[in-house]
């Protein structure tokens, strides 16, 4: 079986082969080949930046469709709190959850409730453990994968707790099985702002198997849900999460819940990379916790959302204000004791950037790479289909490109050939008389 590595994919017919996405990709995972973008599978960390920057909407994430509901007898929706910040003039979580149920779900359970459980466990872990400081949040799967690829030495800093999505799915399944429902009849549907979490549902990090069965993008659900919300007659009291859990949707939400002052909340993958570089340089040993979220503003800025991050933040604040005024429903009957909240599978580094397993050969290749790079114009124009001149040199060394892919090198070669041809044309075969020509 081929390992499922990422959910972001290209719709070829829409791609015009521009360089917007290759230039922004934080792991240099995209090349343009034959006029179309191509994702290097093992490098893609599903940050979704390419989905956001593509002007032709040629990038999307592979998620499931609402039709899948029919595959299961018993269907449960577990919405990410980001969903609550998508609608116009609706700030009551109960309204949104009631509407969600009406799309065909038997039950709903909030990921934000699970987030509160994760917060409690994280607090204990941070106090007791001998984790390396600064401890890095495991909430954003993109950041974990970024660390696996670009900052492997920071793996031991990651807080080894499972994500709220996974905790929610486990609680739901555990509970339903106890109530006598056959596991194979249960479908747990995560309502997601996030492409990386869609990947995690199929190929999770830190655990063997995810309990999430299907992932629906917020976009997919929004179309139907927005209409349904207008037609509700009776609002059910379904909300069990409160302020602390719901605020996980935005940058700083997880960190503030941990009740530690000494933490950094950083959002936007390029900013997170800068902070991780500082950790790598040993500069942040005095910081207790780093919450790094790949999307601008946190999950509110996720690639599968409808509302833009900044407007969504304003809406979420209204939702949060609302939750302060009304007490959350009880869910004490849900047993969490027998649910493991910790990673139980080692998270390994992924040396996908390395030029060769054998260091002697890697050094030779690196020298070759430098030699090629010196010849290139070093203006990082991207016309070769690689994000910059260094990356093209790297592709050449890996036998994935030719130096003539650089239009400047091609022009130089053509000129040299033309000069050679002119010189050749002037040569006269010895058997011919000069005057004949």
């Amino acid at each position: 079986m081929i390992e499922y590595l990422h959910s972001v994919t290209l719709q070829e017919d829409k791609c015009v082969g521009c360089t917007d996405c290759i230039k922004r990709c934080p792991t240099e995972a995209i090349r343009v080949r034959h006029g179309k973008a191509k994702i290097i599978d093992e490098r893609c960390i599903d940050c979704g930046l390419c989905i956001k920057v593509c002007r032709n909407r040629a990038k999307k994430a592979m998620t499931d469709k609402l039709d899948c509901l029919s595959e299961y007898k018993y269907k449960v929706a577990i919405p990410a709190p980001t969903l609550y910040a998508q609608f116009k003039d609706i700030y009551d979580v109960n309204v949104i959850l009631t509407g969600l149920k009406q799309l065909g779900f038997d039950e709903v359970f909030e990921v934000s409730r699970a987030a509160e459980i994760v917060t409690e466990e994280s607090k204990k872990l941070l106090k007791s453990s001998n984790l390396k400081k600064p401890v890095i949040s495991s909430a954003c799967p993109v950041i974990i994968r970024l660390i696996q690829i670009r900052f492997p030495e920071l793996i031991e800093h990651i807080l080894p707790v499972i994500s709220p999505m996974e905790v929610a799915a486990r609680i739901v399944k555990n509970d339903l099985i106890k109530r006598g429902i056959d596991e194979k009849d249960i479908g747990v549907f995560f309502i997601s702002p996030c492409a990386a979490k869609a990947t995690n549902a199929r190929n999770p990090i830190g655990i063997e198997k995810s309990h999430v069965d299907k992932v629906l993008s917020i976009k997919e659900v929004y179309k139907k849900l927005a209409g349904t919300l207008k037609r509700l007659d009776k609002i059910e009291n379904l909300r069990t999460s409160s302020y602390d859990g719901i605020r996980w949707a935005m940058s700083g939400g997880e960190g503030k819940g941990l009740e530690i002052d000494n933490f950094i909340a950083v959002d936007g993958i390029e900013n997170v990379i800068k902070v991780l570089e500082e950790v790598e340089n040993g500069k942040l040993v005095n910081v207790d916790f780093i919450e790094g979220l790949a999307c601008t503003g946190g999950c509110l800025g996720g690639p599968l959302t409808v509302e833009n991050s900044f407007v969504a933040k304003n809406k979420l604040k209204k939702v949060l204000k609302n939750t302060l005024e009304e007490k959350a429903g009880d869910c004490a009957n849900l047993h969490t004791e027998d649910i493991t909240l910790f990673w139980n599978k080692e998270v390994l580094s992924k040396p996908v950037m390395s030029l060769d397993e054998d260091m002697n050969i890697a050094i030779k290749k690196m020298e070759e790479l430098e030699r090629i790079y010196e010849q290139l114009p070093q203006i990082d124009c991207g016309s070769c289909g690689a994000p910059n001149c260094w990356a093209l040199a790297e592709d050449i060394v890996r036998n994935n490109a030719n130096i003539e892919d650089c239009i400047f090198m091609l022009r130089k070669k053509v000129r040299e050939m033309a000069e050679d041809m002119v010189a050749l044309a002037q040569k006269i075969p010895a058997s011919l008389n000069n005057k004949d020509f």
Partner: protein
Amino acid sequence: MKLNFEVDGDDFLLAGEASSQVKKVLKQLGVASDIIRRIAIAMYEAEINMVLHANGGMVDVDISPEKIYIVFQDTGPGIEDIELAMQEGYSTASDKIRELGFGAGMGLPNMKRYSDDLKITSELGKGTKVEIIVYLNREGD
């Protein structure tokens, strides 16, 4: 293989370029991550010192499968008493520099801690040369 960098003395905010670049190369060479981290920390401290105390200088890096050898050469004021400078907490950084978060006197001690070999030669008024060796195969530890 060899790499060379010129470290600008004007802007300490930009310091770290050389160590960043070397980190990238070492990752592509497949060097173990804990070793890269030690090199990153030692290099960063040496680079910052060159910017803060010596107005910049040159970095030469030589990578072989056995070890990485890095030389930092500057033409700054030099270090009067190297043994004293090596002590934890010793710093001549000005208040202004301290306000920016440097000057804890931990740079040189950290360089010693994270490298396998550290050699400093310095002449007052002429400059300072800092040589760092980190072995790349674990057996060399």
